[in-house]
């Protein structure tokens, strides 16, 4: 008997089985999803008003503002990078659009497009600087965190947004609802679906995950990791800008502190949603789930009439429990 005979037997016809892959993808989001369902049920069963349209809508809206940006962060985390400047980009684009529409009477749609372009430019600046200095994104964005927040001050002059043409279809369309869901929520869902596809099924997504999985090998394989990183940062900038512009369409006003602290919320959503920090994978739908979890907790505090002084404590504990259970589930899954 030849030595290969057995091996061939073992080899078996390698059936076209994504089974395992699908399973692992599902598992990644399973923990967070269960967490979200649990939180929603706990609040909803005890306080049925939680299921009222307005509360659901406002939760969806809050979560979407965060999730849209978190989608970009997922790409960066999958490359083991972190962008701290998204809160600033969000604020700059929010204000820039408002100033153009208000003080300069630019057409709202044009103003929105300019703001989106500015977001892409700020993301690109992060990327160009990181590539030029050959440093991780977090280092560059420690600087641009300050820089972009400063731009909000400069653009706003420290003042609240000017009076806006809120009757424009820009505000009624993008700030409104469609089929009973806030338009920003539709954006989050559609962009989330597209970016899930991009992450899992396109060459860009694979390159992103490859760089995060083994940077050295990526270099060896000729992946233009600098360019991939630049694109991921431009995408993140675009998403932060989009979130800012859509926020403006709904809020119709704002003050210079808008977007402060958003960077941590956004990273939290991505991580609570199951994206690991070790790179190589990232869950786009998870980021939406994570954002919804955080939004639901905020509502929960209200419905359970948690003493305001204890609000943060309860929030912290719920997050701990959520990430703890997700971590344990993942570990359990890995074992079997």
């Amino acid at each position: 008997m030849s030595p290969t005979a057995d091996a061939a037997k073992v080899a078996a016809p390698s059936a076209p089985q994504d089974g395992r892959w699908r399973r692992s993808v599902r598992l990644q989001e399973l923990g967070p999803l269960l967490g979200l369902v649990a939180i929603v049920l706990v609040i909803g069963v005890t306080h049925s008003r939680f299921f009222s349209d307005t509360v659901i809508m406002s939760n969806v809206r809050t979560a979407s503002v965060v999730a849209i940006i978190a989608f970009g962060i997922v790409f960066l985390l999958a490359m083991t990078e972190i962008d701290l400047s998204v809160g600033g980009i969000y604020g700059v684009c929010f204000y820039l659009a408002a100033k153009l529409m208000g003080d300069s009477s630019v057409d709202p749609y044009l103003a929105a497009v300019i703001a989106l372009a500015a977001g892409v430019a700020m993301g690109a600046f992060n990327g160009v600087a990181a590539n030029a200095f050959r440093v991780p994104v977090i280092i560059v964005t420690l600087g641009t965190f300050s820089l972009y927040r400063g731009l909000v001050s400069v653009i706003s002059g420290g003042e609240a947004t000017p009076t806006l043409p809120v009757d424009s279809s820009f505000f009624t369309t993008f700030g409104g609802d469609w089929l009973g869901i806030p338009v920003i929520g539709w954006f989050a869902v559609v962009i989330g679906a597209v970016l899930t596809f991009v992450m899992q099924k396109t060459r860009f997504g694979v390159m992103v995950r490859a760089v995060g999985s083994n940077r050295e090998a990526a270099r060896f394989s000729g992946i233009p990791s600098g360019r991939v990183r630049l694109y991921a940062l431009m995408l993140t900038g675009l998403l932060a800008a989009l979130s800012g512009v859509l926020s403006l369409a709904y809020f119709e006003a704002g003050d210079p502190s808008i977007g402060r602290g958003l960077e941590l919320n956004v990273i939290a959503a991505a991580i609570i949603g199951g994206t690991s920090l070790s790179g190589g994978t990232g869950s786009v739908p998870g980021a939406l789930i994570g954002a919804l979890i955080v939004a639901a907790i905020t509502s929960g505090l209200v419905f359970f009439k948690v003493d305001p002084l204890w609000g943060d404590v309860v929030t912290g504990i719920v997050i701990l429990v959520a990430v703890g259970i997700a971590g344990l589930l993942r570990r359990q899954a890995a074992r079997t």
Partner: protein
Amino acid sequence: GCGSSGGDSTATSGTSAASTSAAGTSAATTEAAKKDVNLAMVMSFQIPYFIAAQHGAEKAVADDGAIKLALQAAEAPTGVKEVQMAENLLVDGPQGFAVNPCVLPAWSKVLKRMETEVPDNNVIAFSCKQAAAPGQTSPVRTFVGASDAKSGEEAITLAIDKAKLDASTKGTALVSECAKGTPILDERVAGAEKVLKQRLPNVKIVNFTTDPADASKNLSTWSSVVQDNPDAVIAFGPCDSDTGSIVTLKNKGSAGDVAVALLDPTEAGLQAIKSGKVTGGVSTAPWIAGFVTIDLLAKAARGEGAAPEGWIDTGTYPVTEQNIDEYLQAAGSPDAQSALFQPMAEKILGDLQGNTHPLDDSFPN
């Protein structure tokens, strides 16, 4: 003459300037012979409220023509950065110092240093009066600004009156505690609640925490609260982001006919008053505090008399459909701001004695 304690200034870098100014006092009476003075001003925060104060201060500088004002501001009140800025500004030997020590503790040491290093302890706290709080071992003797408690009271009173609520009204009052622990905001809430209890004894007050910066999170909390309290009759929140959320809810029609009490309304709030979605609000006009503070510091530095000790009340101003256009216009440009607020400021400066009260009166009682 000199300030009351001017005589015992000790030898510091600032002293020479102080003694020169004391020596030149008699000359500094006419416009033409106006002496140059160096003043310093540190702001804790860059939000519309403090920016308005800054504009007031800058107008005073522009009008005077001989004031050099070194002005610095931290981007957010953490205590650490603004204190470092103050300590650094102190090295330049300013002849007067304007502070808004919103995170007071961080300031206590630097205020003590100002006592010896700024000639005649020519230091005024504006907008954040804590440095002059009773019980604090603070050397600051003058506070310029509005009473936060009183402004809260007035905002609620205006809303109650406009909505014609009374002792028979039942339901809940929604009062957010945004950035709890920040004294000027807490006092506004305390003032509002005091009036609510007095005027609406059958209304239950519901407290909750809102996010001071994250507008969408703030709105989400307000949405949940409004939903959770269908019997709400009146709402109040001390932060700009609360104003934004309440106004958004009103504009989108999800807050029904809840009466809204706005305090220091932002542009969005003014628009809501203009459109009638909100019946009115109360402004503390921080512009005036900035203007008055610089004016008083300059006068003291020139030896034209120290600022009176105590609380110089810059007043609270109702904003209603009658005068909304002026306020909206003022929000448009610094010049329009000056046009609206400068006459008010000069009125206060014209009757300093009448507008000065014991410091304790600026606190809730």
